């Protein structure tokens, strides 16, 4: 609420009464916001105020936040939705009158009368906002029975499941997809009772230009949009005696997983997570951060090559698969601009099935690589044809942070009381530079730490580049590297990415390097992270934790990771060299925009 209040600061003050208490609020304040000031909590459902990323969903479609406005002159009170009704002089609102409560209950009952009665087996059981609301309002009986929606589930994609029967038409996903991410995939389809949200022409998700960023999943109050569940595949692999199952965890997972166990947001649970994975029976517990350090070796080399040889600039980071898919669909003319580096977890998978397999004498076909990711798009990325060729997949199974949480619970592991363990070697060795990949600004800072030392030949005095840090969706900074100033652009959120891409397309870009992450805030706010339920403070705490974790590492520059250096010496040769190109780089292709 605080952010919305700030917007009204210079406005004239309005006198109103809420629940018979007098108060003054700035013009433009909604009744919902004003009520919070007098400690009256009005339940909401479709309403979502994520002012940190400039998203407010104001459809007022659910009618759950109804309040009673007193009209003593005409002796006829009326009911209004408090989330969109702004205050006016002399207004008197009752937030918990019998009429308001009755209207609220009726709205929820009507929603439930057309909602599948399958909470027990629903993907969002105990995390569903509609379910929580029914509990909060103590709905014990639904007065209406009748026709229910009956649509097939959309299981077409490798990432997102769409279940229109569970859509309550709050349109949060549509606001996120259109206004924040500017992908324009989801729209209200049809009208009246049958209406639901889906892609153009109601095509299956897989045929749409969806990037699978999963931000729609992150804000969906019910299970209308969820991730494809891959937990069972992991259990199967773990119970197959012929398989050597290794797991890697993305940097953003360790600062969010604790949320699943009621721990304080921003708690670093790296050690407990490793112990849990070992207890679950993985043959080795490795770290995507190893892949991140490897990515930096390649990406920093590519940056230096492009700067020195006057090749295409800016260079764009390519770690984020949702962002990669976005440019393929929306800006195919710019496909020469992103770095050709595979993303860290894919690099990791490649190395696991070549270097690691050879070193340990294991048939790569018997290695199962499981990625634990804060991300839904990584699920689809792992299935990309160019990353599954050469008879074996780079990565076999991707599960989200949430899914890992479910697995730990399912396995009966008491997470909170676990001791800390270290990652296994060699592919668990990592630096602080890799850790910060989890937040907006982190990938480019890691790349600069390495590129700086390589370009100047001198050790960095100050490892941290504070000018690259922050939470704003669109940032720019300059970094002095020897006698050259590198201009850096940073975007998180695809709408912000679009702004930078348009400037490149129109020849107006002034940057040398640009980092883009599809999710507002970066991977810490990924579509596969524990639900933030509209509280962006959680994301900020995760970002702080990421930088703390970086500080905790002894080695904080990717090119000083001893196992990475060994990998190049024993196997890859030169960074950005021939073998590295064959194994660690990829290509992108133009895709239809629909």
């Amino acid at each position, binding site marked *: 609420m605080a952010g919305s209040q700030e917007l009204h600061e210079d406005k004239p003050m309005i006198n109103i009464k809420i629940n018979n208490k007098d108060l003054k609020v700035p013009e433009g304040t909604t009744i919902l916001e004003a009520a919070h000031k007098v400690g009256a909590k009005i339940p909401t459902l479709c309403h979502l105020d994520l002012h940190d990323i400039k998203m407010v969903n104001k459809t007022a479609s659910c009618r759950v936040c109804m309040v009673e406005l007193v009209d003593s002159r005409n002796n006829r009170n009326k009911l209004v939705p408090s989330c969109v009704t702004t205050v006016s002089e002399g207004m008197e609102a009752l937030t918990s009158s019998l009429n308001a409560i009755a209207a609220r209950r009726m709205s929820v009952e009507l929603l439930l009368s057309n909602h599948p009665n399958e909470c027990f087996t629903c993907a969002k059981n105990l995390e569903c906002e509609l379910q929580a609301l029914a509990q909060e309002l103590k709905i014990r009986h639904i007065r209406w029975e009748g026709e229910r929606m009956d649509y097939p589930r959309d299981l077409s994609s490798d990432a997102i499941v769409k279940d229109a029967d569970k859509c309550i038409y709050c349109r949060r996903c549509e606001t996120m997809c259109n206004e924040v991410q500017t*992908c324009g*995939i989801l729209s209200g389809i*049809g009208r009246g009772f049958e209406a639901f949200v889906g892609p*153009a022409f*109601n095509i*299956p998700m897989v045929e749409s230009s969806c990037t699978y960023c999963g931000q729609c999943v992150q804000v969906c109050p019910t299970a209308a949009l969820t991730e494809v569940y891959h937990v069972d595949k992991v259990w199967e692999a773990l119970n197959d005696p012929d398989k050597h199952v290794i797991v890697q965890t993305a940097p953003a997972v360790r600062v969010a997983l604790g949320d699943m166990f009621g721990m304080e947001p921003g708690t670093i649970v790296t050690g407990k997570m490793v112990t849990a994975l070992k207890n679950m029976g993985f043959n080795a517990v490795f770290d995507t951060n190893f892949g991140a350090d490897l990515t930096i070796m390649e990406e920093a080399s590519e940056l230096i090559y492009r700067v020195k040889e006057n090749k295409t600039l800016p260079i764009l980071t390519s770690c984020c698969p949702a962002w990669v898919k976005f440019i393929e669909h929306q800006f195919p003319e710019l496909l020469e601009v992103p770095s050709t580096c595979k993303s860290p977890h894919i690099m990791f998978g490649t190395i696991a099935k070549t270097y690691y397999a050879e070193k340990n004498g294991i048939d790569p076909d018997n290695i199962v690589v499981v990625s634990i990711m804060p991300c839904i798009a990584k699920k689809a990325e792992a299935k990309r044809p160019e990353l599954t060729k050469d008879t074996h997949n780079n990565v076999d199974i991707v599960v989200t942070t949430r899914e890992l949480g479910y697995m730990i619970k399912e396995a009966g592991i008491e997470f909170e009381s676990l001791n800390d363990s270290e990652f296994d070697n060699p592919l668990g060795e990592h630096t602080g530079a890799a850790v910060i990949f989890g937040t907006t600004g982190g990938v480019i800072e890691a790349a600069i730490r390495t590129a700086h030392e390589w370009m100047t030949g001198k050790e960095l005095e100050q490892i941290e580049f504070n000018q690259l840090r922050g939470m704003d969706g669109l940032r720019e900074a300059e970094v002095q590297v020897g006698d050259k100033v590198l201009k850096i652009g940073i975007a998180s959120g695809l709408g912000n990415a679009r702004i930078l891409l348009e400037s490149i397309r129109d020849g107006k870009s002034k940057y040398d390097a640009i980092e883009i992450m599809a999710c507002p805030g970066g991977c810490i706010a990924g579509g596969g992270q524990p639900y933030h339920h509209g509280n962006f403070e959680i994301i900020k705490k995760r970002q702080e934790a990421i930088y703390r974790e970086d500080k905790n590492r002894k080695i904080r520059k990717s090119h000083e990771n001893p196992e990475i250096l060994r990998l190049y010496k024993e196997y890859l040769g030169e960074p950005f060299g021939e073998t590295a190109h064959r194994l660690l780089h990829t290509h992108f292709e133009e895709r239809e925009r629909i």
Partner: protein
Amino acid sequence: MTKPHEIDVYEPVEGELPKEKFDELEAFINSLESTDGALIEILHKAQNLFGYLPRDVQLFVARKLGIPGAEVFGVVSFYSYFTTEPRGKHTISVCMGTACFVRGSDKILEKLKEKLQVQVNEITEDGLFTLKDIRCVGACGLAPVIMIDDKVYGRVKEEELDGILDTYR
């Protein structure tokens, strides 16, 4: 109204849509002072030109206006006036308003489905007729009413249907 789940996942139309019509549509859009808030007007024009709004036409409009295809489809699927299926040479509209309904227009509709071998909103195999059910046309005194294109037939009896259809064959 076409229910969303009845909307087929139809394939892009290839090679059938005349380029001149796209040119005309483009000229129309270019002639507008502003395209802000003009989507419905443009879709009207497009439907008049093509007879219906196939996927390729909707995408053309979306590209031209710089808006997502989903947004265009959202509007097309909202208004019953817009149709995403080709229409036959003639459109048969059976009034299902209250007066017509109580005087048996549902039976007339069933009979027409049987005779034409189509469901509502479908086109006959010979491309001659599209069958539609519509709400009150304001000729309740003549119930039950059917319309073929702009011509109204009142107090229609089942046994008259063949004769009426034959005049269009």
